[in-house]
């Protein structure tokens, strides 16, 4: 039924040890970096740097630990797709709530709901 015919060997990609350790070393480096950056005040840039570092770290985990680089590209598409939809969700919700903040009053004008 299925056209795939392959011998039982060579399923999946075997990561060499140097690569695993190298990726781990990079991850630790970035962790130290992201903590170190918080001691330097860069204003709002801080959060974007922190997020950029997180994205790099996430990409390292995804590409090497999770084998995405050697996997069917569709699996990467799923991951990227999920983040895309998430971006749409967060982006629009953030935009809208930001727009209507001006209508929000301090909560002490609101009485607690009975019951």
């Amino acid at each position, binding site marked *: 039924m299925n056209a795939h015919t392959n011998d039982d060997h060579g399923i999946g990609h075997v990561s060499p040890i140097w690569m695993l350790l190298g990726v781990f070393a990079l991850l630790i480096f970035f962790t130290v970096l992201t903590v170190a950056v918080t001691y330097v005040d860069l204003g709002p840039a801080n959060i974007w740097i922190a997020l950029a570092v997180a994205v790099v770290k996430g990409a390292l985990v995804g590409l090497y630990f999770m084998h995405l680089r050697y996997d069917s590209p569709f699996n990467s598409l799923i991951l990227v797709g999920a983040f895309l939809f998430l971006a749409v969700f967060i982006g629009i919700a953030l935009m809208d709530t930001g727009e*209507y903040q001006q*209508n*929000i*009053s*301090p*909560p*002490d*004008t*609101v*009485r607690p*709901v*009975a019951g």
Partner: protein
Amino acid sequence: MLAILAQAEKTLFLPPARSTVAGAHDGLYNFVLWMSVFWLVLIAGVMIYFVIKYRRKSPQDKPVGPTHSTAIELGWTLPPLILVMIIFVWGFRGFMDMNQVPNGAYQVLVSASKWSWTFTYGGGENDSVLHVPVDTPISLVLNSTDVIHSFYVPDFRVKKDVVPGRYNKTWFQATEVGEYNLFCAEYCGQGHSAMVTKVIVESREDFLAYLVERGKWWEGESPAEVGQTVWVEKGCKQCHSVDGVDGTGPTWKDVFGSERKFADGSPRVADEEYIRESVLNPGKNVVQGFDNVMPTFQGQIKDPEITGVIEYLKSISTHYDGQLLEPFPVSVPAENSGSPGAQE
């Protein structure tokens, strides 16, 4: 122009149009309605025609028909696309008209709670039925004290949710004197279907007379007396004494007319404007030696009440030796109320 459109009478489905935006709304409604009838008749007609024309003659039939045509696909994609874009723009413009409160509109505060409406006018008059003058733009500021409700008057084509914790805004301008139904359109529990009241549209004269009638609770009290009541009822006295001893906040005694020193060292004389600011934006001028802890009374205090507080402070200050205001007049306090009479 809009007013002329609004004269259009009851259409096939809609209730009579009784506000300035209703005409534009009904125009689009009728356009979409007839467009829909056109497409429905076309689709159903073609479908029935095909069912008859291509009825199965024998179960052995092996018909062959066209299977694809990009030209045809594009051909029947474009007209609906153009139509919906027209409708989008039309609907969006109508929405902006419904949404943008005109300058100088007479403001009414709408407070919804389970399961009743309270409408409050500029002078603090309030009622459970909404009275508005005819041919006057009315701006509504909506707030709920418990759950989400929705302000809905079908005859005006106006609807806006009334959400706790925020102030939604909408407006309308009624075009004819009369009584109209006002519904709660967002489900709010047991009494949801009973949360129905009336909008009474009346002439300006009748409306002013109504306001005077509703406004009599101010009658006879002097502003300083009102201020003293505010001091007790709004909880000011918990932090601000009037005997000269500082509490959490500075005492009110001898404040008016004195020179205040702020946390950053700058001085300012406590005048009317300073008092008003301190009530509405307490964080702006924090007096030296005190913490910035007072909540704002924005939205919780009426203008005449602030006036009252100012007069009360004057009455207990040795730095002020002028006259105090006379008792509030019986009619609408004109201050900042934007009463419809003022627009002429």
